[in-house]
């Protein structure tokens, strides 16, 4: 399944880039995301609890970011599975500054989905993916708006501090 499209978020490109590289904040925006943890530099593991109509399932997997060029581009590799099927794929994300206050996000990806899910879901998988992407971008827009109005700004200091501590620990444990 190929997925591509673009959307506009009303925030400066740097803000969008920071958001898209911040697992803590991202985990709140991804529909059904139950956890997103740092495995290493640009590598995360996560759990999604997806429910569309009566089809509900828990999927866990890994997410890896490659070819990072801040603040404009990265490639994302996804590999996840659940009882009902698997999802494997890659995609690119490009951020273009439209002006000082808004950013165009272009995405393109190729995703393979397999397992029982496909047997009944084939007809609606594309639409389900589009629906979840739509929900994600709507949540991202709300998050960026909140940031703009300063609600998150103060928390940000502590978050950044917390993140540096986490990173420090991650590095420390990898060395051993």
């Amino acid at each position, binding site marked *: 399944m190929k997925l591509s499209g673009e959307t506009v978020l009303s925030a400066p490109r740097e803000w969008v880039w920071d958001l898209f590289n911040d697992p803590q904040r991202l985990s709140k925006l991804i529909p059904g995301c139950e956890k997103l943890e740092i495995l290493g530099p640009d590598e995360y593991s996560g759990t999604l609890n997806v429910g569309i109509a009566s089809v509900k399932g828990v999927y866990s997997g890994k997410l890896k970011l490659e070819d990072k060029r801040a603040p404009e581009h990265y490639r994302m590799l996804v590999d996840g599975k659940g009882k009902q099927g698997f999802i494997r794929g890659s995609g690119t994300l490009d951020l273009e500054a439209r002006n000082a206050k808004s950013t165009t996000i272009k995405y393109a990806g190729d995703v393979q989905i397999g397992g029982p899910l496909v047997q009944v879901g084939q*007809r609606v998988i594309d639409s389900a993916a589009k629906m979840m992407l739509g929900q994600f971008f709507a949540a991202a827009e709300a998050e960026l708006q909140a940031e703009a109005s300063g609600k998150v700004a103060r928390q940000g200091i502590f978050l950044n501090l917390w993140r540096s501590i986490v990173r420090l620990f991650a590095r420390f444990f990898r060395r051993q």
Partner: protein
Amino acid sequence: MYPSAFEYHRASSVKDALKMLADYGEDGKLLAGGHSLVPIMKLRLAQPAHLIDISGLPELGAIREEGGKIVIGAMTTHRAVESSSLVRAKLGLLAECAALIGDIQVRNRGTIGGSIAHADPAADYPAAILALEAEIKIESVSGSRTVKAEDFFIDLMTTAVRPGEIVTEVALAPISTGCGFAYLKHRQPASGFAMVGVAVLLALGKSRTCERARVGITGLAAKPFRARAVESALAGKDPAQAFASAAAHAADGIDAMSDIHAAADFRAELARVYTRRALEMALPRAKA
């Protein structure tokens, strides 16, 4: 495959079903005709711990006339709708639509309430229900509310029905005398689902111009919709001249679905062609 184990409960009334739905919460699932739910349970994509069967409730299975409207109980089967003399006489569009759903086995079991609550993007009923401007009654332990068809379908398999609620009735105003109508679909040959389905209601003015048109389209997008661009392109026009150009707007501004059977472009083209054909079929049935 066998479904995972579940408890089967037969509700004795709507009230009883609502209570069970409230008690079991996330673990409970309503069973109507079962022609969408049971296949996904057999693949274990859905594993409800409690199935609450409402299909046998007589209070949900009747078709009646009330306050100038025709009220169809949510558990009325497609077969009962298609063969009801009341529906055939006053809601010909709905009867024709019901007759084209799936196959005879599906029509004998599947229900109008189950179909719209499941909101499969390729289901037939939603197109007709939108064109007929139906009102859907939804009940919960705290009371009942009525939702217009256009506000009912929200997104892919997502409706205005909230957890703990049951769709109990669909109320429709009879089609005015002289109104032409048609439901046409491009059928997916294996499943019978609508790759695109178009329901049209057409009222002509004195000089046989289009006085009013309502067009509902299913199968094209993640949710069924009213094709307002087509409707407004027809208003006040001479049908013979306006049909082709109006039908060309059938997919305007719509994010068409894509699957192994039909790519988005092809689906959009099907919508335009079937809209024109449905209009052409409705015209000779309309009287000024």
